């Protein structure tokens, strides 16, 4: 498989608020980190696949490609998608097709530039009918949780435990982010923080259940496998990637208790990677809320529908960095997740991939996970666009599976 896509370097900025920086400066910073890592020059790039979800709205930037061309003095083909995973998928296809050998994949978002209007924009893009009816970005998560509770008949004592499990997800992600220098939040929180925010909100989810609004950029360099060793000793291969799409109007979807798009995409990605699910030891899931982390673990197939909260609760009492599922360890959102690492939408996927790549290369520092004294062999990234309207799954591994 000489055309197998391989990630030879990853880079990112800190997520959070970058008041003084232009969006292009953020991507430049991420790209420089990545290119330094693999000693790659701009002129080696044959194409750029970029992503941003909001720049035309938040920064009144159209034709982001042109800004990047001006910055890099490059005239190669450039395409813009809405998420890093989407950009990566397109780049992988091009590499596999043999069209390009070396491409840049990157994402930028600058949401805080439109701080006071961003929730309206988010909701309008994510689910217009729900927006018109008065929905907020948070409301869909709460409704999904209520639908989940009802469908799985969680009540009484169990309901308290589920709520506590969700709170622990948030606490865990904040704890993980303490070890991540790029994370938006470096602040340990406690169960009490989460619970009292919920009490203030007078509903199931509160401030500490949701990912923040962020600025940031991420970048990775993708080559075909036969070239990868020129740039790095440790290429990370894209073994499987897939996406699926669901209705934009959340209430119209057949299943309100999870994301069908994730389920479909994961099945296809696993098939492409030709590895069993159980071999995946690390997962970066799209936790725009604690509910999303819970539900994504189920949607990805790690837990049966309606059960993940039991696993989470069971292992979070004495949290050692992983959830125990099916008798094995599953490390989820070791970078702090969207909750604590940050969620600059168009760049988020890059940070998720960054984390898995670093973990698979044993370069994650304090966050490095070990499974039975070995670094994990495979990891997966789940990125969503909208409220589960699109799901992208990327399965990464340190070696190519020989057929």
């Amino acid at each position, binding site marked *: 498989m000489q055309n197998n896509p391989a990630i030879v370097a990853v880079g990112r900025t800190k997520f959070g608020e970058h008041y003084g920086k232009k969006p292009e400066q953020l991507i430049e910073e991420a790209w420089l980190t990545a290119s330094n890592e693999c000693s790659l020059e701009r002129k080696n790039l044959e194409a750029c696949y970029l992503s941003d979800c909001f720049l035309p709205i938040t920064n009144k930037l159209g034709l982001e490609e042109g800004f990047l061309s001006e910055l890099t003095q490059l005239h190669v083909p450039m395409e813009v998608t809405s998420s890093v995973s989407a950009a990566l998928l397109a780049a992988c296809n091009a590499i596999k097709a043999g069209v390009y050998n070396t491409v840049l994949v990157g994402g930028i978002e600058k949401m805080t530039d439109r701080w*006071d209007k961003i929730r*309206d924009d988010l909701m309008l893009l994510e689910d217009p*009918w729900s927006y018109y*009816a*008065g929905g*907020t970005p948070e409301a869909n998560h709460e409704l999904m949780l*209520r639908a989940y509770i009802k469908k799985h008949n969680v009540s009484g004592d169990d309901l308290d435990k589920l709520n506590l499990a969700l709170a622990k997800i948030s606490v865990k992600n904040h704890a993980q982010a303490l070890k991540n220098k790029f994370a938006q939040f470096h602040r340990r929180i406690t169960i009490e923080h989460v619970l009292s925010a919920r009490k203030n*909100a007078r509903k199931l989810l509160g401030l500490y259940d949701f990912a923040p609004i962020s600025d940031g950029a991420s970048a990775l360099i993708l080559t075909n496998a036969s070239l990868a060793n020129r740039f790095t000793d440790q290429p990370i291969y894209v073994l499987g990637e897939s996406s699926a799409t669901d209705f934009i109007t959340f*209430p*119209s979807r057949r299943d309100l208790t999870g994301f069908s798009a994730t389920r479909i995409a994961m099945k296809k990605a696993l098939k492409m990677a030709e590895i069993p699910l159980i071999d995946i030891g690390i997962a970066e899931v799209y936790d725009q809320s604690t509910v999303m982390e819970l539900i994504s673990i189920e949607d990805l197939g790690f837990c049966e529908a309606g059960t993940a909260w039991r696993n989470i609760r069971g292992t979070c009492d004495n949290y050692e960095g992983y959830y125990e599922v099916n008798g094995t360890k599953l490390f989820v959102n070791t970078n702090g997740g969207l909750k604590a690492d940050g969620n600059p939408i168009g760049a988020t996927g890059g940070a998720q991939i960054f984390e898995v790549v670093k973990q698979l290369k044993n370069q994650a520092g304090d966050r490095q996970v070990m499974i039975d004294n070995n670094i994990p062999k495979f990891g997966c990234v789940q990125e969503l666009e909208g409220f589960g309207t699109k799901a992208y799954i990327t399965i990464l591994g340190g070696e190519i599976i020989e057929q």
Partner: protein
Amino acid sequence: MSSEPIERRVSYIGDTLRACRCSICGQEYFDARDYCGNCGRKSFGKMQNINLFYDKGKLEFCTLVNEPTNKFRKLGSYIYGIISFHDGKIRVPGRLTDQIIKEDELVDFSDLEGREVIPRFRRRYSVSATEVIPTISLAFTLADEYYPHQEYKIVPSSKEYDTPGIVGYGVYTSRFRIKENRIERAVPFIDEDSVTAAVEAGKMALIHSAIDSSLVGKVYVGSESNPYAVKPIASKVAQVLRLGKEEEDMQAVDAIDTEFACKAASSMFKDAASLVNYYDSEIKYAMVIGSDNSQAAPKGCPGGELDDFVGFGGSAYIFGKTDLIAKIEGWYSITSDTPDFWRRDGQPFPLHGGRFTGDPAYFKHVKKATEKLMEKCNLKPIDIDYFITHQPNPRFPVKVAAQLGFKEDQYSISLQVNKFGNTYSGCSPIGLAAVLDIAKPEDLIIVTSYGSGAGSDSYLLRTTSQIREKRERQKINIKSQTENQFIKFVDYTTYRRLKLGM
């Protein structure tokens, strides 16, 4: 929304909740579309339009929105959730309206989930004062509260009349009231205005009349509180209620707004009746709506005296020559240029001529029109069963009725100003509705409107034998709206805030 084409499309679908059903596989969709996702190309042309506006739904799941997006801020906190129709075949997002949720109030969501809800036509969200006001019917009220669900069932007409008259009517007021000095007045919720009340009243009139809305050939909307200086309320009513035949995305109906202070609607009763009576008229039914979010300056400001009496509400009457509940047997109109009450363009609140609003204005015109009508029809006050007139305050109608020689039992039932306030264009029609709610067949009714500026129209109505059977179709009558355990009373500050709207 600053884009008019987008606004038009969202409103076209959302105001009347246009959905569709595949006639091949039965799958239902919100919103309307040209083909079925299951059946593909063969379903082209086989999608049936359905309209959820008259349906009832079920609140499946809900949560509290206490940090709304910018455009919903003025609503404060509200309940938002997922509503299903037709046993879950269609699900839509929606917010519960007509609820004031206090800042520290705990809402028991499980108590709300599973309950039936009814779509309400309301303002969608706030926009700047120069923009088109967005509307939507993804706002819902609980069916077991103020407004129960009423089925809109078309009943073939059974009887033709030679004289035109009233086929059906509906009165819409809000569930909110303010009570001051023993007077209760209807207060709009923050997402209501004269446009939304006009549509809701029209919907109720259609339900009561049980006629096919496509047979309504003309709609008049009288109001003096249209939120637009230029843009008709009537076009909104025609589109949301789908009056007249549908021609592509237009309605084959004539729609017009009228203005003459508080007689803007009642003046058109005779026009509507005449239109359906025209010898080769293709218009079978005509609808007249009077709707006002009556304006008044705050107390203490110039014109603030009116703030003791202004109300909110709409009434709609459908005129035709089939299955009448009351025939129009005569009318008499009187007009003079008397400046007793006015509002200059661009001004938010009206002013009035103080002591000159009585004798030279209200009393003079109401008396003359009523006396001349009785004279024309050879009737004396004693021959009349019910007398209704305009009610700007509780005192004027009683005084004019006495001056005309009517006894208390002839007019007391019509006095609704103590319950709803002065609903301006909706006022004398609401008084008439209170009478029609209880009248017997063959009762003689005189209703005399009054519009400042000034003029009066006096009508002689005779109820028919059908009035009783048709009454069954209207559960939401004046009584149910005055004696309702779900009425919410608000204080003066809240009243002024709600009155301002989104």
